[in-house]
């Protein structure tokens, strides 16, 4: 996914003079050719994430379209006030593109993990959030984001589904059956495996913000499970608003709040949070039957 991001953004830099990239050392090597070609629009500020976001705000104030990139905890958690004030309060936008997700940095530890990034952005107004489940979905999301001035967050991860769904912007039914299970981004493959012999409808989206409320109202029939690759319950408010007035039970699955002080692989962390196929199956089956 990161390579797709680098390739697509490099193409955008050549095609659209409004495109700019602001980095804080992370991925600077990958952008080196683009930086040589567009030295005034590919900017590496060094290990200065507050400045990275402020610079993006300043670029946007002059009419450019900045793409801002780092590890999720440095991009979102660390520079939260810059996101709030130097983008939102100035009434300008940017495209924030993170890597690392909730626990790609499994061996790096909690300092390199951001399970709360989407929940942090939920405290702010006007953010579109994309969580692509496959590298094949990334380019189209980035190109669309380059074409306007709104605030967009693209959350890339190493965990990927086996298949891309370019039409995943709204809820897309993958398998028709009984009660609805919604999988966000890379949660689709483990959800499909977990529910292989369960009578459920599985729907997918790579765009949890804005959440497809209309799709939810049409598909949810009293019972609903939402599986997200960041903090469990992040979308609880959006689901409640979408289903307001409709009697329903809902189970929110995602990353736990308690820090897992272990290393290993992302698969190990998925298992620890009950987000592997076996863990998902147990909790989904308990809830629905």
């Amino acid at each position, binding site marked *: 996914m990161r390579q797709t991001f680098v390739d697509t953004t490099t193409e955008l830099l050549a095609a659209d003079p409004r495109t700019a990239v602001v980095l804080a050392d992370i991925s600077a090597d990958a952008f080196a050719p683009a930086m040589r070609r567009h030295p005034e629009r590919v900017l590496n500020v060094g290990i200065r994430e507050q*400045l990275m976001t402020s610079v993006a705000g*300043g670029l946007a104030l002059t009419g450019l379209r900045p793409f801002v990139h780092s590890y999720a905890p440095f991009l979102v958690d660390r520079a939260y006030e810059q996101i709030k004030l130097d983008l939102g309060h100035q009434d300008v936008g940017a495209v924030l593109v993170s890597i690392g997700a909730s626990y790609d940095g499994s061996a790096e530890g909690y300092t390199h993990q951001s399970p709360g990034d989407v929940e942090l952005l939920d405290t702010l107004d006007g953010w579109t959030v994309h969580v692509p489940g496959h590298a094949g979905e990334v380019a189209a999301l980035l190109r669309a984001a380059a074409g306007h001035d709104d605030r967009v967050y693209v959350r890339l991860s190493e965990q990927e589904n086996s298949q891309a769904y370019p039409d995943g912007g709204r809820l897309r039914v993958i398998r028709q059956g009984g009660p609805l299970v919604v999988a966000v981004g890379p949660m689709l493959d483990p959800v499909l495996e977990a529910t292989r012999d369960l009578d459920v409808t599985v729907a997918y989206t790579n765009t949890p913000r804005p959440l497809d409320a209309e799709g939810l109202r049409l598909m949810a029939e009293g019972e609903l499970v939402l599986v997200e690759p960041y903090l469990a319950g992040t979308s609880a408010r959006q689901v409640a608003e979408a289903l307001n007035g409709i009697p329903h039970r809902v189970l929110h699955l995602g990353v736990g709040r308690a820090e897992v002080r272990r290393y290993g692989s992302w698969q190990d962390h998925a298992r620890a949070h009950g987000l592997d196929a076996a863990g998902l199956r147990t909790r989904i089956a308990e809830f629905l039957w």
Partner: protein
Amino acid sequence: MTVTAPPADPLRPLIRRLTGDEKHDASSHSTLDVLWVLYDRVLRITPETADAPDRDRFLLSKGHGPAAYYAVLAAKGFFPAEWLDDLGGWDSPLGHHPDRVRIPGVEVGTGSLGHGLGLAVGVALGLRAQGEQARTFVLVGDAELDEGSNHEAIAYAAAIRLPLTAIVIDNQSATHGWPGGIAARFPGWDAALVDGRDREQIEYALVKPHHDRPNLVLAAVEPKWSNR
């Protein structure tokens, strides 16, 4: 220091209309002469060109105590002087910190300290990337320099030799001061120390061209707490 606000100064009656902002009174006046020189003699911007892509940019990073800023903008016709009578009111565009979305001529909304310098670096880079010759100025307070975000911007601007001008109003309001001097915190910058009440000195330092490095104008005014 010379006293440079004669009785006929058009700004004093305008500032007096801004009665709602007592808390930041001293700091609001510390910026008065610098702001007047900027808008009267330096910046290529008028109410008619407030949105022109090639206008000079001035960012007030130190957004608290904006009375002097509002008075200067009103004196220059960016908004009606009547607005000054309802500072912080429900129906007023003028808050105790400026909002760029509400006030013509205001480039950035500030209040939380330590945001303007980084934004100014981005603005200067954005103008340069688009071939604009417009200049970028940003005003910071000496106490505001406590915020670490400033030092990210100071170091990067020096490293890339970015020609923008930062004005630091020094009224000695930083709790722990700046032993060794404020200019020493701006390595790689040109630095000029001026009397923040001497409009000739201020103008000279602000219009001096700087093409290949950032420019610091350190404007000293009366200490915020005279009993220190």
